[in-house]
């Protein structure tokens, strides 16, 4: 519980909120107090720690192969941008709470994430299964579902993803409904058909 939230600076408030988010949900009073504080730019919303988690997860979900991966395609910055400018404040804060819980889940010691590449991959794969096969309904798993969705969107609508990894055809000019797949070679970047 935060006593007198209106007496804290916004930075102190976000820090205090972050500290307790593991065990409580955001109360309307806290949300109101956050709004009241004449907030600094929303770009300060995401901490460096949270950014590292997002960066790591993006890279695991869509790694570099023979084509750029999510990180090279600017997906972490895209996710930042969405959190700040497209998600509601409530959604963004819940997402960030879930992301921190996600990172904590992977620890064996007081390290914030598993340390080897294969451990990290298996840790995220496990969460992916729980979130998307088992459809677990916790803040952590909802945040993961959001994160994965944003990673896919951010990558496949990026210039690298759309034009290098997939088949990019902005003005086809005609419709050919029955062609050899080998003459196209990859899936259409457009979600329309």
């Amino acid at each position, binding site marked *: 519980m935060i006593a007198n939230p209106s007496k804290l600076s916004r930075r102190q408030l976000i820090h205090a909120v972050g500290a307790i988010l593991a065990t409580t949900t955001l109360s309307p009073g806290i949300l109101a107090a956050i709004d009241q504080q004449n907030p600094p730019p929303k770009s300060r919303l995401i901490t460096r720690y949270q950014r590292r988690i997002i960066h790591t997860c993006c890279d695991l979900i869509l790694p570099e192969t023979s084509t750029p991966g999510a990180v090279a395609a600017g997906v972490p910055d895209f996710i930042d941008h969405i959190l700040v*400018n497209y998600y509601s404040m409530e959604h963004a804060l819940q997402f960030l709470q879930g992301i921190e819980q996600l990172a904590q889940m992977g620890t064996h010691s007081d390290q914030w994430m598993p340390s080897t590449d294969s451990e990290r991959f298996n840790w995220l794969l496990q969460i992916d299964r729980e979130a998307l096969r088992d459809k677990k309904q916790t803040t952590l798993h909802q945040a993961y579902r959001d994160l994965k969705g944003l990673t*896919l*969107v951010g990558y496949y609508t990026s210039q690298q993803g759309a034009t290098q990894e997939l088949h990019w055809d902005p003005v086809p000019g005609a419709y*050919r409904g029955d062609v050899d797949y080998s003459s196209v070679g990859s899936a259409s970047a*457009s*979600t329309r058909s």
Partner: protein
Amino acid sequence: MNSPSFDAIVIGSGISGGWAAKELCERGLKTLVLERGPDLQHVQDYTYDFANPWDLDGRGMISEDIRSRDYPVQQRCGVFTEYNRERFVNDRLHPYIEKHPFDWIRGYQTGGRSVLWGRQTYRFSDLDFNANKTDGHGTDWPIRYRDLAEWYDYVEAFAGIAGNTDGIDHLPDGVFLPPIELNAAEKAVLPQFKKAFPDRHLISARVANLTQPKSHHTELGRNPCQFRNQCHRGCSFGAYFSSQSATLPAARNTGNLTQVNNAIVKEIVYDAEMGRASGVRVIDRLTHQETVYQARIVFLCASTLGTVQVLLNSVSDHFPNGLGNSSGTVGRYLMDHMMVGGASGYVPNLDDRYYTGRRPGGIYIPRFVNLQKQTEPYLRGFGFQGSASRGTWNRRLNTEGIGKALKAELHNPAPWKMTIIGFGEMLPHADNRATLSREKRDEWGIPLLEVDVQLRDNERAMQPHIIDSAVDMLKQSGLQNVTPISLNYRPGGSIHEMGGARMGSDASTSVLNRHNQSHDVRNLFITDGSSMASTGCQNPSLTYMAMTARAVDYAVKELKQGRL
């Protein structure tokens, strides 16, 4: 008071209003088009037409705060994205009241929803025009197919409709440009479909896109469809029919058109002494200044519910219940098409086939139930729209898988999947209606519309059959893993709302006569969806176009004979 005067006023610049403007102007009438929303100029205002997805910082996503604050209803529409958000009405600024759930999906700008529509165009037949008489629901249409046939020819030729001559009695063929081809999966399914269902048809969708423009299309500046299937962003090629690409330029070319935007119609003014509408009172959306425009004839094409609202708000001593409402039926017999769901399934053994380009239309399965007589436990019927396609990266948004394996999988398209969604006819019912709120008004002092539409017995009886027959059809056509699709349909959800000012022969039970002319007010014509006496199951816009062109022809002849 300054009361500018015209030969004709058209209220609304959408599918119907654009046609009224063109036809009136081409017959030499000085015509004023009043559009309640801002202008949306062809090409110049199609901001995202050539945008790459990465050009939008949100990649097509809409801010959650904006979505919930300004578009709580519009967001229910499946095609709503940042690319076209500004063509959807701002719900917060234009509220209405849902007495029962009703999705009123609107576009308030030049062109109305003609800049957002799905472009599917099918004729009604006498199966539809006879329906009310046959089963007694609603009042008999005062017209039959033969009254509209030449007008369908006329509007199809001008609009440019891609389609096939299919020879189906209850889905009459039209004046067509070359059809859009079926793709590999659809062609593969067709023989099995025909074998399993010899009396049913699976045809190319008929769409208002220029597969091969004629000279009168290119003269208007229209170009062939480029098969991007992003029509709802606005098409700078003018390749699909909209007021912007087609009817308004034609109207403007006559020199007889005056278009005023931000002009919200409060009421049509009735001159009791002359026994006619004398003009239209408008309030400016931005300045709130009021102006009365006068005209000899008025075409009310404000869309189904917009028209109802204007009529109900046009109150006078002579018409205390709304203009032209001596029957008491204005606002009643509202209908929609039930878009409750359908089915999807996979088409096997075609992984080496793909497509290039993106089609604005796929397949159509016309109604096949209750054709000669009622054989089902419900009246009337439904048709299906659909297509086959190979899923791309967004198929994995909600499924498991990460890493190199995910990326490798998404590098290739998914197997072919066919989806069909049904559109079911809704019966006219007196208590499915819209009225004006007694308590609440909008920013311009106009009472809010209260919409009260419910599904009734026949709709509930039909619903499961739509989905069951979709599943059955796909299964018997050889598709695998066929699953039903259940959409969270609410009335209004197909964006085919109709009724509220229906045509009929009897002035005591209808609003309009066989010429879309008000029974009560001879110089008032209504040709949008509100005029429909029944819905059929076909997309209605083509019928609005044909009725509008036909009604203008009649109105101008009557005007010139001094009878209006």
